[in-house]
């Protein structure tokens, strides 16, 4: 029995951390947030060179064929660096969906390109999770029409993977005619988000997705990745809080020697420490224990969203006025956690689902 990360997983984590520290320091994050797309492309290129685009793609299609635990480790590392790159949609949910539900020609068309870092796929599942503004898509005679909100990794994507309200998945080449892209500006400027308006756009169904278990698996994976991203980001906020409290003096003392501050840090640590174990455990269930994976993924996303909210608030408070400034940049982590919380379902929405999964309605 061994519960934890392997040496290989730890070294992957270290590699990403080192890469981000060297290539995406706070100045770079700020530049990207202010619209420097060249810098964003450089960082993106770098994570492709690390092999992250092909992480979950099967070997026969040119990927590394690693499991969800590896993908979770990567997501947490990207969250800790507020990395301005596509990942959860393009490199986890999209290849997973295509591999699970695509026909052979669809797999051959997309998976090698994803693995090779030659294409980005935006993923839009929001209308399946819970449609806002009555958005949604319909598929008639091979053509998609309608509207999708909050496409993850959708900006400048080469293709879109979109779900209708019953969970069937369609893949759309972004160069097809009839697509209007509207850029959305969320609080989190380290990642992009778009809205799509489709009018009779050529699209292909992923045939396996008529079985609802496909979108459920894709959602479970996506939610777990977002939870891991939050854990990574929240851990950095806690570490920064402790470090700041051991530098900053008031009343002739380090503020970290006041119980009021110590207890805030202890509460963050007590809430956050089990979350590391929880994402590993959930990943293990997605990889090996299918009967527990749905509930585990839902509760992991819901619980970690709550912890992330609390930690990001408390950590900002520990930094006092500095925590509120743009200069310190702590807000990038705060906002990253804020977006993760809402993507693919807010905690309340996901807990509703967790109740249904357990048969509470019976």
């Amino acid at each position, binding site marked *: *029995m061994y519960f934890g990360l*392997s040496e290989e997983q730890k070294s992957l984590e270290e590699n990403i951390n080192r890469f981000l520290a060297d290539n995406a320091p706070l100045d770079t994050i700020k530049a990207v947030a202010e619209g420097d797309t060249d810098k964003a492309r450089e960082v993106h290129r770098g994570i492709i060179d690390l092999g992250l685009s092909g992480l979950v793609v099967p070997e026969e299609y040119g990927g590394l064929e690693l499991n969800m635990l590896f993908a979770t480790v990567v997501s947490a590392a990207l969250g800790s660096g507020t990395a301005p790159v596509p990942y959860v949609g393009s490199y986890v949910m999209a290849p997973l969906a295509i591999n699970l539900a695509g026909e052979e020609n669809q797999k051959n068309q997309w998976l090698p390109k994803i693995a090779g870092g030659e294409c980005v796929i935006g993923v839009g599942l929001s209308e399946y999770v819970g449609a806002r503004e009555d958005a949604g898509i319909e598929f008639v005679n091979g053509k998609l029409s309608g509207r999708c909100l909050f496409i993850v990794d959708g900006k400048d994507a080469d293709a879109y993977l979109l779900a209708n309200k019953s969970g069937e998945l369609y893949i759309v080449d972004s160069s097809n005619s009839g697509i209007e892209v509207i850029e959305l500006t969320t609080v989190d400027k380290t990642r992009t988000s778009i809205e799509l308006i489709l009018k009779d756009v050529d699209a292909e169904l992923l045939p396996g997705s008529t079985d609802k278990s496909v979108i459920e698996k894709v959602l479970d994976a996506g939610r777990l990745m977002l939870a891991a991203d939050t854990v990574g980001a929240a851990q950095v906020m806690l570490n920064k809080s402790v470090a700041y409290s051991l530098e900053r003096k008031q009343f002739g003392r380090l503020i970290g020697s006041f119980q009021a501050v*110590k207890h805030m840090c*202890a509460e963050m640590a007590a809430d956050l*420490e089990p979350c590391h*174990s929880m994402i*590993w455990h959930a990943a293990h269930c997605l990889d090996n224990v299918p009967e527990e994976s749905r509930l*585990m993924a839902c509760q992991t996303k819901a619980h970690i969203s709550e912890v992330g909210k609390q930690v990001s608030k408390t950590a900002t408070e520990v930094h006092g006025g500095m925590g509120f400034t743009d200069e310190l940049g702590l807000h990038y982590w705060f906002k990253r956690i804020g977006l993760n919380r809402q993507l693919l379902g807010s905690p309340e929405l996901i807990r509703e689902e967790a109740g249904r999964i357990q048969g509470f309605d019976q």
Partner: protein
Amino acid sequence: MDLEYGPQYDDFRAEVINFIKENENIKLSGPPRSESRVEWQQKLIDNGYFARSIPKEYGGYGGDMDIIKLRIIAEEFAKSPIPKPAGGQGIQMLVPTLLSLGTEEQKQEYIRPTLRGEILWCQGYSEPNSGSDLASLQTKAELDGDEWVINGQKIWTSTAHLSQMCFILVRTEPDAPKHQGISYLLMPMDAEGIDRRPIKQMTGDSDFNELFLTDVRIPAGNIVGARGEGWKVANATLGHERGSLADPNVTQNRLNSLIDLMKNETIDGQRVIDKPIFRDRLLSIQGRLMAQHSNALRILSSQINKEQDATLAKFIVKLQGTELRHELEGLAIDAMGELGTLYEDSPHLRDNGVWQMTYMYYLGLIIGGGTNQIQKNIISERALGMPKEPKIQGA
């Protein structure tokens, strides 16, 4: 990542299951220390299901310290109504202390009867003016010939009315700094000069006592460790207490009962579990519990794989576990509404009033065993490396 115990443990598990099947119907009667209880405890030791790694010469089973086997025993016993091994502060705290720091005579004299349940122990630590600041304790012991003479007052002494012995912290070196002036003594509860008064607590029960000690004389040899080293000796055992207060597996059983309760109780004919706000609270608690369960797996893994570090994961168990349990019991009360306030032997009482009782009891555990505020000091100082609060001059 590997959550399997491995096929080499299949035979062992089968053995445990077989033992449980053969003994499942045993019902223990009579008070603690009665013959049937001692016999059962001895049978568990003889089969290696209790005191497994304690040496045979001191009354244990003398087996290997195999964490997975201990885990399998705990898992299988938890599934069955079979009588569980007796616990208590003697077994949880005194025995490990004597094993690591006691003299050969003390080990020979006390460990076997303690394991068998023939000697029950209470803990004489807290005093009316020394709670969170335990090291400021003032109960003193002076050596008079070959006897310690103890004077002072202890409080929050659990099970003192049932115990034959007390492991007690006393000040023996009044001129030394406070942490270095304390000794750890073993005091027979039938010694003259011990006056015990039960403390009635908010639940209505009396689990605790006050002890008034007036010229209590005990043999000079009843000391564990050297004079003035009692603080170190005591700290070796406090670690054993903290983890045991908040086992997520026990909380899981309570959550299952809570789910049943919320399916059975109705408001205007609608099941409580179908009311979205109640259901959301239930699911939030479940999410927190799942996180704690994952945390427990990490701790277990660190005990099996020595190279794994789970320091912070261990430090937070008491704080997180007691708070969660208190909230869980409180949700059950809210789910019952006015019915949730019923107590003792009232008409319409649910589950013998166990929800209110446990709700209050866990508030006690949030305070006891080192308050949760003290836990936060420990987490911030020992795990996060933050400084201690500076001493205030003259206070």
